[in-house]
């Protein structure tokens, strides 16, 4: 009896760990629930119940004792981890991994660092800003200013987010940097169209993924997740708008 409840405990731990990593890495709600149910089904015949919100996961296996809850306080986007956990869950479903091995592999994924260095990410944010400027019908003359503003804005976001735990405020400061740079560069004749520069360089900060995921969750019936992701997206958009507005006011 005791051995069995030990095993149930371990199964729930593996499921929760997988769910936790996926949720923190920005996977869709339905994918998190699906992965956890699949892992549980591979190790135990009984049906499992899980409830995933952007801020926490509740999980239990029918007719057994512990129901566990974990709190998720911070979410970012790390698609490598989503892919890795997905891979592990596939292997579990096909019976290639034991409970212990699965747990160790998931632990290793959880600890993994980002694939790209911070400089690579800042550089790609700045190049993306320049490219967005061209895509939104800006002129090539403004390409470099947009790169500078976008790159520094993204760097500011990363830096301030380390200093301040409040995401909203880091986003506000980052877009303030972009706004000030765009206004300054056009003022000194280094850029032509201020609007286009701002739109291009704000793109790496814009919560596009959150907005579409929110509506998608809502339509799929994950009402709690959809609403809270929508609120998060709205807050981010508001922070960006406020930062730009602040820069105009200065």
């Amino acid at each position, binding site marked *: 009896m005791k051995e069995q409840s030990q095993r149930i405990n371990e199964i729930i731990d593996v499921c929760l760990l997988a769910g936790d990593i996926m949720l923190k890495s920005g996977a869709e709600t339905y994918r998190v629930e699906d992965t956890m149910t699949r892992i549980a089904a591979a190790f135990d015949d009984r049906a499992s119940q899980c409830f995933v919100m952007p801020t926490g996961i509740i999980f239990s296996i029918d007719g057994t004792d512990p129901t566990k809850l974990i709190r998720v306080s911070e979410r970012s986007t*790390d*698609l490598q981890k989503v*892919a890795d956990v997905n891979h592990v869950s596939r292997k579990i479903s096909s019976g290639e991994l034991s409970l212990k091995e699965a747990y160790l592999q998931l632990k290793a994924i959880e600890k993994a660092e980002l694939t*790209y260095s911070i400089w*690579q990410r800042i550089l790609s*944010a700045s190049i993306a800003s320049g490219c967005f400027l061209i895509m939104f019908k800006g002129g090539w003359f403004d390409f470099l200013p947009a790169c500078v503003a976008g790159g520094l804005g993204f760097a500011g976001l990363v830096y301030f987010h380390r200093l301040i735990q409040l995401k909203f405020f880091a986003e506000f400061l980052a877009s303030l940097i972009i706004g000030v740079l765009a206004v300054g560069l056009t003022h000194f004749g280094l850029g032509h169209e201020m609007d286009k520069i701002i739109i291009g360089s704000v*793109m790496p900060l814009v919560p596009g993924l959150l907005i*579409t995921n929110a509506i998608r969750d809502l339509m799929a019936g994950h009402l709690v997740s959809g609403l809270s992701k929508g609120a998060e997206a709205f807050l981010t958009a508001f922070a960006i708008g406020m930062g730009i507005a602040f820069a105009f006011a200065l």
Partner: protein
Amino acid sequence: MHVLQQCITSFIASAAFGIIFNCPKNALVKCGLVGMMGWLMYILLVAFNVNVVLANLLAAFFIAVIGQSFARMYKMPMIIFSVAGIIPLVPGGMAYDAMRHFVQNDYSSAVQLSAKVFLLSGAIAVGLILSEVSNQMYRKLRSLKQGA
């Protein structure tokens, strides 16, 4: 020339977003491809005077379809391919414009723009959902046929 320029920039922008979102390295080029095809579809539709909302919906649908087939081909979650592709479509510029009009006390155009932003992001989401639903329907129909 104009189209070529748009192709190259949208490819680079989508791949760069792949790096920001920490995509697996072997998926970066595919992210760029998905983004490029989606954006190309969008600008072509707009050039043929299709309504912007409808163009967004169709482009998102197209991106999701390619994303799904890539996901099946390379055994990776679909979100990896669709996220970077969707980003260029998201009406971030318009959201910014709306915010700016609010700040300048021009509320009537600000509300108009916000409504448009809402419609556009709704259209993108509907496009994504539509591809998922049609995929599910296709699979159900096929399994029904095989069962019969």
